[in-house]
């Protein structure tokens, strides 16, 4: 032991070398640990991204797979004779006569003629259930728009009732007990016969894109809700963009930095965190009850959503204004530009891409918002396509909510289809935001 101690006595030079070697060893040992930590962290990251992607894939594939059937619709081709004595027995061609004529009888008789063996009242009713109530409406439209057709026999493609459409798509099938389904064995047999005769075919569901809501799934469409969304968004944009940008410019460029502006700033951030349903209640209490604006109208919906979008736009605009380098402001001020000129000629144009990006993201948020609109009556069942901002309307997400709530099975596919349309708009808007950001990236 003593020998060992003796040999441990080192010259300063050796000691220095020793210390360096020890440090180098320590570094080498710790390296392994550090690389392991790095690899672990990277694995977590990849795992997180993978999980997120998987969720998106699952979400999209379920929505698309359950929504796609809604884009086709079964139709039956019938040779309908537009009998003069049923439509207009007196031959007056009077408008109200034409509108109120019994077109149901016309189309039902045509269908019944396909099965002469069906005689009983009950059987006849069961057979005519194959036709959608929209079939008679379609003939009515045709005749009222062109009365000269009366007396002719036309080959018409008429919509099939939703239950039979589902049977045609295989959603309703014989696997379920007859008492548990809405299509009886007899009806299935008739439908199969019609199919064998080649007069049932599946076509693109144009009704879905041209109609508003309906109690009959085969007649329900998305256009009413889409127009409602459009009008609502127009009101929101027209209100929140100018107000938001003006507020941001004032707070960022002109307002003195004191306690009051600090309180305002904090409260704008608070406003962004207020639950949207609260804005809905506010809209109900103030806009509808106090100011007496129309219920269920895009005008009020847009105003409520504008309140909700304002903080987003103000915060994004202020960030964009702040990102404009002070040297640009100094350059303009140094030339003798007034503060207003500095803002309108230089700062605002440079901040505009950022402001627009924030606005689009705020609008996308508003487009998907449901809760506040429920409070102001935009959840109503509305069959007419709105023609302006004061007409009763509903919006896309509320339409999704309404259809998801409907008992008819055929609305399942339509709910998913409506979600697809809503998501398409949202993705388009976000893509536009990204594009803007890319195109106008900092140029100084």
């Amino acid at each position, binding site marked *: 032991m003593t020998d060992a101690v003796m040999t441990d006595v080192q010259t300063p030079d050796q000691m220095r070398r020793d210390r360096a070697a020890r440090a180098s060893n320590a570094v080498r040992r710790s390296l392994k640990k550090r690389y392991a930590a790095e690899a672990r962290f990277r694995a977590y990251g990849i795992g997180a991204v993978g999980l997120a992607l998987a969720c998106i894939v699952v979400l999209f594939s379920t929505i698309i797979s359950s929504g796609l059937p809604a884009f086709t619709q079964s139709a039956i081709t019938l040779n309908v004779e537009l009998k003069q004595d049923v439509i207009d027995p007196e031959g007056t061609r009077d408008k109200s006569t034409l509108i109120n004529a019994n077109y149901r009888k016309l189309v039902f008789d045509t269908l019944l003629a396909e099965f002469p063996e069906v005689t009983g009242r009950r059987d006849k009713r069961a057979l005519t259930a194959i036709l959608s109530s929209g079939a008679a409406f379609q003939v009515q439209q045709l005749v009222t728009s062109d009365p000269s057709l009366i007396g002719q026999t036309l080959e018409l493609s008429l919509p099939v009732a939703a239950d039979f459409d589902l049977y045609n798509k295989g959603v309703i099938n014989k696997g379920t007990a007859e008492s548990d389904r809405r299509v009886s064995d007899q009806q299935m047999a008739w439908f199969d016969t019609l199919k064998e005769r080649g007069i049932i075919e599946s076509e693109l569901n144009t009704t879905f894109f041209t109609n508003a809501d309906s109690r009959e799934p085969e007649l329900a469409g998305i256009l009413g809700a889409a127009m409602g969304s459009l009008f609502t968004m127009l009101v929101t944009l027209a209100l929140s963009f100018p107000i938001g940008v003006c507020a941001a410019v004032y707070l960022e460029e002109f307002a*003195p*930095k004191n306690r009051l502006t600090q309180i305002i700033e904090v409260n704008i951030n608070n406003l962004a965190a207020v639950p949207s349903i609260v804005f809905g209640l506010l809209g109900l209490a103030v806009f509808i009850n106090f100011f007496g604006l129309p219920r269920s109208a895009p005008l009020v919906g847009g105003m409520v959503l504008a309140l909700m979008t304002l903080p987003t736009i103000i915060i994004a605009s202020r960030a964009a204004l702040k990102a404009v*380098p002070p*040297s*640009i*402001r*100094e*350059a*303009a*001020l*140094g*030339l*003798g*530009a*007034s503060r207003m*000129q500095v803002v309108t*000629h*230089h700062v605002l144009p*440079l901040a505009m891409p950022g402001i627009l990006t924030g606005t689009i993201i705020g609008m996308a948020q508003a487009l998907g918002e449901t809760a506040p609109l429920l409070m102001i009556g935009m959840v109503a069942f509305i069959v007419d396509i709105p023609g302006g901002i004061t007409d009763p309307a509903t919006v896309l997400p509320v339409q999704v909510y309404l259809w998801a709530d409907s008992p008819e099975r055929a609305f399942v596919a339509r709910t998913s289809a409506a979600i697809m349309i809503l998501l398409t708009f949202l993705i388009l808007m976000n893509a536009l935001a990204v594009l803007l950001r890319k195109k106008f990236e900092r*140029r*100084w």
Partner: protein
Amino acid sequence: MGEVDMSNAVEVTAPMASSDAARETKFHTRGVQVFYGEKQALFDVDLDIYENEVTALIGPSGCGKSTYLRTLNRMNDTIDICRVKGKIELDGTDVYSDKIDVVHLRARVGMVFQKPNPFPKSIYENIAYGPRIHGIATGKEDIDQIVEESLTKASLWNEVKDRLDEPGTGLSGGQQQRLCIARAIAVQPEVILMDEPCSALDPIATARIEELIDELRDNFTIVIVTHSMQQAARVSQRTAFFHLGDLVEVGETGKIFTTPQDQRTQDYITGRFG
């Protein structure tokens, strides 16, 4: 600039100022004090700036020379916590009084900044902007003429005349700074303030700017803040030395660099501090 030995007095090459009798006072400042919040940045500065002459403000970092410069065209107004006291007169009118509008003041007293800061617009628009907002020129021909004149005076015309539509930010650093000078003179100011205009430039670009400053002296009064004593010696006729918020010494550039009166000036120009 390495050719100058810091331990010796700097060689003076700039021409001496014209005779005292001919000089007109442009800026007359007495007892200028500037506060940033509670902190005082300038203490009772008395300084006169003469017409058609280059006045250099030198001193170590944080000595208040830029602060003083920015009181002359009230650029300090943009800083909320900044307060200015004292008398600052341009041609006998107090610039902080109601008689002078700050926009008009800045049109008369132009400024060139430390970092070249052209607008992210075309070269042409950079120059045309000032005359346009002040209504100095209307009509395309007038503005075309001002653009050409200003760029020529800033000795940039030959380099950019074929690409006036290209963005000003695409030029090299030295060209950008000359563009900023051209932009300043396009407004036809009486005074041009320059805040370390060459600190972001290489020696060749610096030399060109210095030549330019010397040429501009015939038409404009120039006040330049610089960190480089060689530059002060080369371009200025009068030099003011600032230290810790005080104006220590002011005089003919030649005298300041050869026979400084104050010990602190002596120490600074011989490189003992700063």
